[in-house]
């Protein structure tokens, strides 16, 4: 078995005073194969964005800090690197695009300069070569009339076009991993589909692995091979898209699936998960989802469930469903 491109091991991120920290990412582990695509899904406050920012060590410090774990990229621990070596990784090996295309581009620089800067920082090209490469990239991400738009400023672009510019900037140096943090949340539905299609296209053409962060399980199902479900700072379920959708093992994942609207839906109202996400760091004991969980038993309040195996590549952190699955497989094993 080859080593994965990125492997996050027991990552923890804390905010606030060291004496009394709030843990927003708690013991998170997962990995991405080279060229693979993983989606991280969770509500706001689940720690998914902080997890993604940790990979490039962009967690705002202070008040935040990465308090534990390892992030192995190509076998090397990014968290152990000296701080001044991180800029060499960012944009060259791992690139990132953000939720707000409106505010993520510098309003006083032309988009050509901004994309060109990503190249300038990591590659040895003269300005004519850079400009040629920027035009190529603009064409790649589907900006009409690249030569006419290269010297335009962000305010002259629509939201969808700005996100395309962000993608062009991110893939400028052919990174091996592209992190997309809610890339379509701020966009209209039709534009969302176009941007997602573009990300898929980029992945196929350039072989870039993609880590897609979203609150929308539907988007992830559409564009990823594997899914990581996060809740209150922890991974509660992880597996390939197919088995998660067929046999969701965690009650939270089941609830998320129920709340996706569908065309063949007969219901009048969408399903809503009762209650709300607990405040970050407020659950110190047991399962964080228990207050909203229809299946909860006494153990859930006392012991934190570890990730149980539900299949060859499918894990979930629930005492109740794990026990049921075990009982089922025991029954199948002894006819």
């Amino acid at each position, binding site marked *: 078995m080859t080593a994965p491109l990125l492997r996050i091991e027991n990552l923890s991120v804390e905010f606030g005073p060291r004496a009394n920290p709030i843990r927003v990412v708690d013991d998170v582990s997962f990995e991405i194969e080279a060229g693979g695509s993983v989606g991280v899904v969770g509500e706001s406050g689940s720690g998914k964005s902080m997890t993604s920012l940790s990979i*490039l060590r*962009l967690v705002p410090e202070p008040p935040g800090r990465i308090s534990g774990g390892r992030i192995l990229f190509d076998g090397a621990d990014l968290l152990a690197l000296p701080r*001044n070596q991180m*800029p*060499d*990784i*960012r*944009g*060259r090996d791992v*690139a*990132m695009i*953000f939720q*707000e295309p409106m*505010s*993520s*581009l*510098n*309003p*006083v*620089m*032309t988009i050509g300069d901004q994309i060109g*800067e*990503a190249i300038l*920082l*990591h590659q040895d090209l003269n300005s004519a070569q850079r400009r040629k490469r920027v035009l190529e990239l603009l064409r790649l991400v589907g900006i009409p009339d690249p030569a006419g738009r290269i010297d*335009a*400023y962000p*305010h*002259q672009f629509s939201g969808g076009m700005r996100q395309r510019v*962000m993608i062009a*900037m*991110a893939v*400028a140096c052919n990174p091996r991993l592209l992190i997309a943090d809610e890339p379509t949340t701020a966009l209209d539905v039709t534009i969302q589909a176009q941007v997602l299609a573009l990300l898929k296209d980029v992945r196929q053409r350039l072989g870039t692995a993609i880590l897609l962060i979203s609150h929308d399980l539907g988007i992830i199902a559409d564009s990823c091979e594997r899914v990581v479900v996060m809740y209150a700072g922890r991974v509660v379920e992880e597996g390939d898209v197919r088995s998660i959708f067929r046999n969701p093992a965690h009650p939270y994942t089941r609830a998320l699936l129920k709340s996706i609207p569908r065309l063949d839906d007969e219901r009048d109202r969408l399903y809503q998960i009762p209650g709300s996400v607990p405040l970050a760091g407020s659950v110190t004991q047991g399962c964080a989802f228990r207050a909203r969980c229809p299946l909860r038993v006494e153990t859930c309040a006392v012991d934190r469930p570890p990730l149980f195996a539900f299949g060859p590549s499918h894990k979930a952190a629930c005492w109740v469903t794990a026990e049921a699955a075990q009982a089922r497989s025991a029954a199948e094993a002894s006819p």
Partner: protein
Amino acid sequence: MARYIFWRLADSIPTVLLVLTLVFIAMRILPGDPAIAALGDNALPDQIAVFREKMGLNVPLWRQYLNFLHGVVTLDLGRSLISNTPVVNLLAHHLPYTIELTIAATLIGVTAGIPMGVLAATHRNRPADSAVRLYSLVGYAIPDFYLGALLLIVFSLNLGWFPINGGGDDFPSRMYHIVLPALTLAFLKSAFMGKLARTSLLEVFGKDYVRTARAKGAREGRVIYRHALRNAMLPLTTGLGMSLLATLSGSVAVELVFNRPGIGTLLISGISERDYAVIQGGVIVFALFVVVVNLMIDLLYIVVDPRIRVQ
């Protein structure tokens, strides 16, 4: 962009007219009879009559207003009541001293202030930041004429390094005379620009595009100077306009401290000598300064903000 410049220039015409009208109102209507103001309460009736005739105060107010505007346009602002010199000549003689002081103070103040703001913002809540904040706290509180007097006491009177008063004649002498007054005004300006740069930068540091710059691998120096500071230039440009005008008005008191022959000194001596024509001339110059500086700042915006430049 051409349209923006055109409209901005066109817009300054009514502004200038409004300013001149306000000056006219202030000079002719507010104080009651300028003749009595100029000659004192005990002036004899025929003295007053001569004065009114000479100053053109015998015609109806609307005629006076038109004469006043005509005078401004043709650069005929009357003659000083004391020296009988044309006011325009007096202004022309004093103006360079005020302008060179304002420019020198602005150059020093801005080049000192902005790096201080950068230092404070990048070392937030650390000793360097506290030092800069203390500096601007004092700079906001100390009156310019007091600081000027202190520098005068220490460096001219006690140490004898700089001249005690005057503006100098040839270029080296003028540069020698300008040091202390310029430093005085520059201190206040650097406090203002430093504080403004700090707040503007701290706000920009929280923006998403700064995170984008870091995410593509820009190092801190590049993030600060290429991305953050270029965006902070927008509030700083507004601040530069405000502080230019503050320096200009501060120059009045500082000119008095160092006895420099600038417009401020001219205006103040006009006031104390009740030299009506000189007061009017000085006020017009300062008022037009304000209009011109605001115009310059708005045009500078075209350079720093592409959202105005490119529609």
